[in-house]
């Protein structure tokens, strides 16, 4: 792996494992069996990529073999003009109600460890 170009999910996966192992240690658990992650549609992180790095990085740790469960909250865009909240079609962020292009992100950028299951 040393000479491969790594995607930005690599560091994120390291952070996930650090968080998980800290919590498992606090709970005096021997093994982590499941990790529930929330990665919003707009978060810019690819679950398959996290899964790939997780298998590599968790080897030999109490998190090895844990199942990763992903929730991906959809992109929620709010129109600044008429306050309609909508899910964008493809990458077009125009308000479906009033056609305004003045919009802000309300949801979909989440990225956190929600819960873990341990033994």
């Amino acid at each position: 792996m040393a000479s491969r170009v790594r995607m930005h999910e690599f560091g994120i996966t390291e952070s996930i494992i650090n968080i998980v192992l800290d919590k498992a240690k606090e709970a005096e658990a021997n093994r982590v069996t499941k990790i529930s992650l929330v990665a919003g549609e707009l978060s810019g992180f690819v679950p398959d990529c996290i899964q790939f790095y997780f298998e590599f990085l968790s080897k030999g740790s109490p998190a090895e073999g844990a199942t990763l469960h992903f929730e991906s909250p959809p992109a929620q865009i709010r129109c600044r003009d008429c306050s309609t909240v909508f899910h964008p079609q493809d990458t077009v962020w125009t308000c479906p109600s009033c056609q305004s292009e003045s919009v802000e992100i309300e949801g979909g950028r989440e990225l956190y460890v929600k819960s873990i299951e341990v033994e």
Partner: protein
Amino acid sequence: MKKIEVVQNILEANDSIAAQNRELLEANGVFALNIMSAPGAGKTSLILRTAAELKDRLRIGVIEGDVASTLDSERVQNEVTAVVQVTTRDASESCALIANMVAHALKRLPLEQMDLLLIENVGNLICPSEFALGEHMRVVVSSLPEGDDKPTKYPIIFSDASVVVINKLDFLPYVDFDIPSFQKAVLGLNPRAKFFQVSCKTGAGIKDWCAWLERELSSHKSHQKIMK
């Protein structure tokens, strides 16, 4: 089996290092820009032009982020006080710059002898946008040959930018880039975005951009003095 609620932001580790970087920069009176764009949009050229314009009045440091090679730092080193190259291929964590790489780079820069730090991120419109580095401002460079649809395709990076520099203005006669509609799309996402139109080839617009940057720097400095 036992379930433990965690709810912990995965980017927290990066964000806290970014905050430390920011403190270190502030303590040394250095104003930092995180410059992002697609590959080839002109980040290095903008740094070269900016440094050439400002080097008599400001002491400038540069962090060059690239996946590989030191070509960009070789181009930049004659124009600035100090340059540090970060090649993300050799770093374990990421393809884009992350706060920890910048923390290491800051140790190799003479911060007390600098006023301005230009951080050239890796050419990419997706990955860099998620990682705060400790910068005061995010600058996105968009060049005319890329097309005017980029804010629609990569909304996040434009949502978070303080400044959008439209580069390669000399291409305007040859490409179908509608500058007003591009600006309208960015402002839709980000009403506070500030725009500059430049050509790093001819130098057009560079004086305006640099004059504005200098004003931002001095207003930041006087604000800091008041805070102290």
